């Protein structure tokens, strides 16, 4: 293997490990959160190096974007430094680490060589089907998209259901339904008072939304797809909410509309499955959607990506509003 690859690889891994160790030692949680974002960013680079561009895209959007925003939001609501870990707490962790580490080390003795072309994973017939047969079955260059949306469409449906559940959880825990009694008036201070931030973010908005649409519909040919697009869409609203305040953001996307959209995406996905069943196919068998299986698959995957985009964007926005609304309310 090329030495450059190894060199980059080793240095990224070293940065990752160092960051992780630092995170464990930091008691200031703001700093730990920022380092966690850095950790995600480096992981995303590593994913690119490991040829997983879609995953890298998602990790960057989720780890660096959503997770960090949420963690910062929570830190603003709670105390931001950790108390000293007492000695008696260290023992269980150390024992677990020893046992798990031992088992993993033992397992690695029989793992195939890293990057080997002859590993069971590469030799299994699914490799051939996903990489080459898929070009005839489905006809989409990005095989990750075809496996995600068609071959393993049920997993993706499950993933969307998990996102939906998280949305419900945050609604029930932090939504307007669980608002504490005491409410303080909204802070007068907005980032919108800074002209530069206001103008720049205003100018960025259309591009962010446009980029999200591009990512959504370009998933067939390059990295991207419904999930990444949804997160980018949501980040647009998050930016808007951060700069112009929650009230104005909620006027742009009212809660009722969000509730509708959260369910709508999921209904669209399940409805697609039901439609294929009514048309005489199996659940999520897109071949029956059109007279020509190829067109059917394209259509099905498009609907799936759109459904994911709608639900993910609205759930992420709901979650952000939930956390941000808490700050206003307290």
């Amino acid at each position: 293997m090329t030495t450059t690859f190894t060199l980059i690889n080793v240095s990224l891994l070293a940065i990752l490990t160092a960051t992780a160790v630092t995170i464990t030692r930091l008691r200031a949680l703001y700093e730990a959160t920022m380092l966690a974002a850095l950790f995600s960013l480096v992981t995303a680079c590593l994913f690119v190096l490991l040829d997983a561009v879609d995953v890298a895209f998602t990790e960057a959007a989720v780890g660096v974007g959503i997770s960090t925003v949420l963690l910062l939001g929570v830190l603003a609501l709670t105390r931001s430094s950790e108390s000293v870990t007492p000695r008696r707490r260290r023992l269980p962790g150390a024992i677990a680490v020893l046992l798990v580490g031992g088992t993993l080390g033992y397992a690695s003795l029989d793992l195939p060589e890293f990057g080997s072309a002859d590993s069971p994973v590469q030799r299994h017939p699914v490799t051939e089907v996903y990489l080459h047969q898929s070009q005839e079955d489905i006809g989409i260059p990005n095989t990750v998209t075809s496996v995600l949306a068609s071959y393993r469409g049920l997993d993706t449906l499950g993933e969307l259901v998990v996102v939906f559940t998280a949305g419900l959880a945050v609604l029930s825990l932090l939504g307007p339904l669980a608002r504490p009694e005491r409410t303080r008036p909204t802070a007068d201070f907005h980032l919108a008072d800074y002209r530069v931030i206001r103008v720049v973010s205003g100018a960025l908005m259309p591009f962010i939304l446009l980029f999200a649409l591009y990512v959504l519909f370009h998933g067939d040919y390059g990295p991207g797809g419904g999930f990444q697009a949804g997160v980018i869409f949501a980040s647009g609203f998050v930016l808007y909410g951060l700069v112009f305040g929650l009230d104005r953001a909620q006027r742009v996307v009212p809660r009722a509309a969000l509730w509708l959209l959260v369910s709508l995406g999921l209904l669209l996905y399940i409805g697609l499955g039901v439609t294929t069943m009514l048309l005489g196919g199996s659940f999520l068998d897109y071949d029956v959607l059109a007279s020509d299986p190829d067109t059917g698959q394209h259509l099905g995957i498009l609907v799936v990506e759109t459904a994911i985009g709608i639900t993910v964007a609205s759930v992420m926005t709901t979650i952000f509003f939930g956390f941000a609304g808490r700050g206003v309310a307290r």
Partner: protein
Amino acid sequence: MTGQLPVLQVAVPLLCAPLCVLLRSRFVAWLLFLAASLTSLTCAVWLAERVDRTGALRYAMGDWQAPYGIEFVVNGFNTPVLLLVSLSAVVAAVYSRRSVAAELDDRRVPLLYACLCLALAGLLGLSITGDVFNAFVFLEISSLSTYTMIAMGRRRQALLASFRYLVIGTIGATFLLIGIGLAYAVTGTLNMADLAQRLTGSHDNRALQAAVVFVFVGLAVKMAVFPLHAWLPAAYGEAPSAVSTFVAATGTKVAIYVFCRFAFTVFGASLVFGAMPVDRIGLLLACLGILAGSAAACFQDDLRYVLAWSSVAQVGYIVAGVSLATTAGVSGAYLHMIMHSVTKAALFAIAGVLLLRLGSVRLADLAGLGRRMPWTFAAFVVAGLGLVGVPPTAGFASKWALVTALVERDQWPVLVAMLAGSLLALVYVGRVIEVAWFREPPDGADPLRPPASMVAAIWFLVLLSLYFGIDASLPAHLADAAAAALLGKGGG
């Protein structure tokens, strides 16, 4: 259309969840959950009958044949689980209407029903799928919705209970993910039947052995096997009553089924119980769990915590049966799974009624219950005796099956632990009965009669447990078929 039954089983509850959120009416949401559970039950009965007649059914998602796509498999080993989960959902639906209305504020009720639909879909999907990664996804659906429902409990302790369950549960799920990854590294496939086929003859592969360890430790968390049970008491004790009724009847049971499925039809009994000492470890943990759980139950002063700790012990009985790895043992374990589900659901439902009418289920507040609410008390006594395993209740039939299986393999120490556990069960059930029957009731008006729907749900379960105690032929038939399907052949 009957060919589509396996997927309808899961898709209908899944479809009802967003509808609950969309329509946002309490009554409609309840109706949707009831409809979802009734549909699932119908599908489950139909499937069970089909499988009984013609053998295993397979359903290829999106018409992609396994191992290229995901498949659902219905066979003797999961029909009892499907029936159990969907029946519990129907009972929980009948029970929940009044219980949820009393325990939750109005605007969160539709969200709770949506979560119940999701939990139902997750558990059914987990039971029916024939793909290991898909199982992980369904496990997360059911777990995440359960965390959410537990957090809806009345007291602030519910929040920490939910958080701890979330952390421990996620560690467990991630362990499962590591195990699946290691198995994938060895075989290159995720389909259970394909995995089983490719794994034969690689017993000394160290990555595979580690995969077994990770999958089982991950599942043990979800099953609440003894040292990994710490999340269970608070989670069951603090959740809204309708939720603990449903989850106590199904949650750990489905995880146990998945354990069996992995042990017998994916990794294979010769690897798990032959080359690796899972059977001995299982029996040891089962004994410890039975003793520790029963003993802890004796020291609780809240009825729901008594019941929750007793669940830890009951998981021990089931694990002991599975660990024997004999037809009789596995069949006994399935039987106990069914019997205990019915009994424990009834008991948690009773606790919910008491909570509704007395405002508390602390033992001190149950004084004189026998005279104040005689019918509810009678139901408690019958179900409680079922927990102890007194004939002719359901608990006796299944414990007898387990005892026979243990004697067959000369596992006397386990037998002793089981007897001790039953005696301890007599103590903790007796403690409740003592307070409720012999202590003077506090002054004041008698509590109102409990709502008819809740009473109906409770008596349905209690009478079912009595019926199964007297004539166990139906559950025993299901359990035998399950054991035969698990041990009969390697492939799933």
